[in-house]
C-alpha cells in the first residue's frame, strides 16, 4: 500500500520532485500548527527554566543559566521522585500488559454477548482519573473503607493496615488503581493486533500438528509484539507523567511523590517559575529518552516482524 515514490532516498526524477513539493505544501499547514502548539510552549518553558523568578521581584526574572537544573539534579527530592515514578511505571505497565493480553485473548473469542462485554470492560477507562482516585481512597479508608472492612470480616490480613499511610502499601494501592483503570486500554490495542492475525496461519499450524499452546507461543505472541510494544509505549509515557493518582490518594506521602507532582508544587504552590519549569523539562526529557529507547529497540522489532510477514 505504501507509495514507493514518496520514500526519500530512492531515485529522484522530475515527477518525484513535483510530488515532493506538493507533499511539502500539503503538510506545511499542519507543521506550522505543530510548531505553534509544541515548539513554542517548549521553547518558552526552556527559557523560563533558565531564569530565576522570585516572589519578591514579582515576576521580574534574572538569567541564571543552568542553575535551576543543577539545583534540581543535586536535590534528593528530585531523585526520590525519579525513582518512585519509575517504580510506579515499571510495576503498573508490566501488570497492565500481562492482564491486557489475557483480556484481549478472552475478548477475541467468539461468544454470545461479546460486543456488550467489550463495551463494559472499557468502562473503567472512561471514568475520570480523579474521580476513580477518590473512589479508591474511600475504599481503602481505614475503619470504614470497603476493602478494609471486607478483609477484616473475612479474617484476612490487611484489615488493620492503614493502606495509604504506610510505605509500600501506599504505592501498591496507587499501582492497583492505575491497573484497574488502564488495563482495558492496553487490552483494546492488543485486541486490534490480534484481529489482524489471519485464521489461515492457525489452520496451517494445526495441520502441522501444533498444539494450542505452541500456536500461542510461536504464532500469536510474535505477531502480537507490535501491538504490545505500542501499548507499552503509550502506557509508559503516561505512567512517567503520573500526577492525579498520588496527588489525590497520598499527596505524595509514603514514597509516592512523582516527578510531575514535584514540578506542580514548585510552579503552582510556591510560584517558583524557574525551578518548576526546570523540573517540567527534566520530566519531559525523561519521558523523551525512554520513548526514544523504546522506538530504537522495540520499534526495530516492529520493522522486522513486518518484513517477515511480507
Amino acid at each position, binding site marked *: 500500500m505504501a507509495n514507493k515514490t514518496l520514500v526519500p532516498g530512492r531515485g529522484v526524477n522530475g515527477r518525484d520532485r513535483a510530488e515532493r513539493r506538493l507533499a511539502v505544501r500539503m503538510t506545511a499547514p499542519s507543521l506550522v500548527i505543530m510548531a505553534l502548539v509544541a515548539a513554542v510552549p517548549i521553547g518558552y518553558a526552556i527559557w*523560563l527554566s533558565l531564569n530565576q523568578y522570585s*516572589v519578591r521581584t514579582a515576576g521580574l526574572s534574572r538569567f541564571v543559566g543552568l542553575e535551576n537544573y543543577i539545583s534540581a539534579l543535586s536535590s534528593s527530592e528530585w531523585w526520590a521522585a525519579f525513582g518512585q515514578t519509575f517504580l510506579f511505571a515499571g510495576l503498573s505497565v508490566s501488570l497492565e500488559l500481562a492482564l491486557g493480553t489475557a483480556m484481549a485473548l478472552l475478548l477475541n473469542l467468539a461468544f454470545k454477548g461479546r460486543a456488550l462485554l467489550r463495551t463494559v470492560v472499557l468502562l473503567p477507562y472512561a471514568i475520570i482519573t480523579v474521580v476513580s482516585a477518590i473512589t479508591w481512597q474511600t475504599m481503602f479508608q*481505614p*475503619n470504614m473503607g470497603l476493602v478494609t472492612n471486607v478483609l477484616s470480616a473475612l479474617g484476612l490480613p490487611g484489615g488493620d493496615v*492503614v493502606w495509604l*499511610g504506610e510505605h509500600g502499601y501506599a504505592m501498591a494501592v496507587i499501582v492497583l488503581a492505575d491497573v484497574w483503570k488502564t488495563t482495558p486500554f492496553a487490552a483494546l490495542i492488543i485486541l486490534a493486533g490480534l484481529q489482524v492475525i489471519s485464521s489461515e496461519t492457525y489452520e496451517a499450524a494445526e495441520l502441522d500438528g501444533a498444539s494450542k499452546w505452541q500456536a500461542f507461543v510461536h504464532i500469536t505472541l510474535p505477531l502480537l509484539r507490535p501491538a504490545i510494544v505500542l501499548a507499552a509505549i503509550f502506557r509508559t509515557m503516561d505512567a512517567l507523567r503520573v500526577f492525579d493518582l498520588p496527588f489525590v490518594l497520598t499527596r505524595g506521602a509514603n514514597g509516592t511523590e512523582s516527578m510531575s507532582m514535584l514540578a506542580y508544587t514548585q*510552579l503552582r504552590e510556591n510560584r517558583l517559575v524557574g525551578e518548576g*519549569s526546570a523540573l517540567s523539562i527534566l520530566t*519531559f526529557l525523561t519521558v523523551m529518552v525512554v520513548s526514544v529507547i523504546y522506538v530504537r529497540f522495540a520499534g526495530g522489532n516492529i520493522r522486522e516482524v*513486518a518484513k517477515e510477514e511480507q
Partner: protein
Amino acid sequence: MIELRAGSLRTRLVTVAAAAIAAGLLISGCGGGAAPQGAEQAAAADPASGANASGSVNICGVKDASGIYKGTAEAFTKANGKVTAKYTEIGATTDEARTQIVQRLEGKSTECDIFLTDVIWTSEFASQGWLLDQTKLVEANKDRLIPSTVETTKYQDKYWASPFFTNAGLVYYQKDKVAKPETWQQLYAEAAKAPGNGYVYQGKQYEGLTVNFLEMLYSAGGEVLDDKGEVAIDSPETRKVLDFMSNGLKNGSADRAVLTYNEDPARLAYESGNFGYQRNWPHVYRLLNATSLAGSFGVAPLPAWEGGKASGVLGGWNLAISAHATNQSGAVAFIDFATTPEWQKHVAMDYSQAPVNEAAYSDAAVLQKMPFATELLASVKGAKPRPISPVYPQISQAIYKNVYAVLSGTASAEDAVKKMAEEITTAKASF
C-alpha cells in the same frame, strides 16, 4: 498492513510527545505570564469614602458552600440602597480559588473589587503590591474586631485586609467515655486508656497537618519564626512535640489511620462512635448533631500544654481590596457592613461561622444557635496566626512533610527538626 502500522506508530509517537509537552509545559506557561513589574507602592483605602459610595461591587472567591458570601452581598445591597454587591465564585476549592486570584492579580484584572482571601495569603499578596492598604480602615473599625483576627491581615506593620469570619480548632469529646481535655498530656493519656477512647486529628501530608502540629507547638511555647522573623523551629519544644505526637501513635492514643485523614475523614471516623476525642473546626458541630452522637458529645477549646497555656492557630477568611479595584469606595462600604456587630451575629446564627466581633459570642440569640460560642471565643482569642511570610506555602511544606515523616516512622525527630529548619531557611532565601 503492518508496514502501515509501523509508520503510524511513529506518527502517533510524535502526537503523544506533543501532548506530553503541552500538558507538562502549559502549566509552566501560566506562572510566568503578565506579572507586575516589581512591587508597586499600593494606595490606601479611605475609610470615609464608603459613605458616599455608589455603583456596584464585585467580590470574588471560593465556591459558596454555606451561602454566606452571597447572603452577605444580598443583605448589603438591601441595607445600603446605593451600592449593589455581587459574589462571583472563581474556584471550587481553596487551592483553585488561590490560583484564579493570583492569575487575576498578576494580570491586573479589574474584574473583582474585593477578593476573599485565606488568612495565610496576606503576606504573599501584600508583598506583591496586589492589595490596597487597609490600615486606616482597620484602625477605624478596630474596637469592634477581635485582635487575633486583625493580626492575620498584617504584613510589615500595615493591615492589608479586614477579617470577615474566623476559625479556630476545637476538641469534640464523648462525655460518657472521656473527660473534658485540659492539657494535651491528659487528653493523650485518657485516649490511651481504652480502645474506644482514641483521638483522631488531621495527620495526612497537607496544610492541615501543619495546623495540627503548630497548635501543639505554640501551646508548648515553641515557634517557627521569632519576632525578628528568624527561623526558630530548631528548638527543644519542637523535638518535645514531635516525640509526643509520634509516641501517641505508637501507644494507641491516636489511631494510626489519622495518617490518611484530612477534615472530613476524621469527622466520619469519629461519627462511627469508636473514638473519644476529635480535633476539628467549628462547622463539625452542626454535622455531629445530625448523627446518633447528638447530645453525647461536648465541645472544648484546644487544650494547653502541661504547665503552659492553650494556644491555637487561626483559620478563617478576610476581605482584601484589589489594587486594581474600580470601585474602591463601594468596597469600603461593603467591608464596613460585613464587619458590623449586627451582621457578625448573622455570620454565626445563619451560617455557623465564627464572628470577628467579640460581642457576638455572648449574644443570647447566637448562643442559642451556637451553644459552644464561649469555648469558640476562648479558642479564637488564644490563637496565633501561622508564620507570617510571603513564602508561607514553602514553609508549610517544610513543616508538614517533615512532621509526617516522623509520624509515619520514616525519620527521627532529630533529623526532621534539622531538615525543617534547613528547608525553612532555604524557603526564606528564595524570597
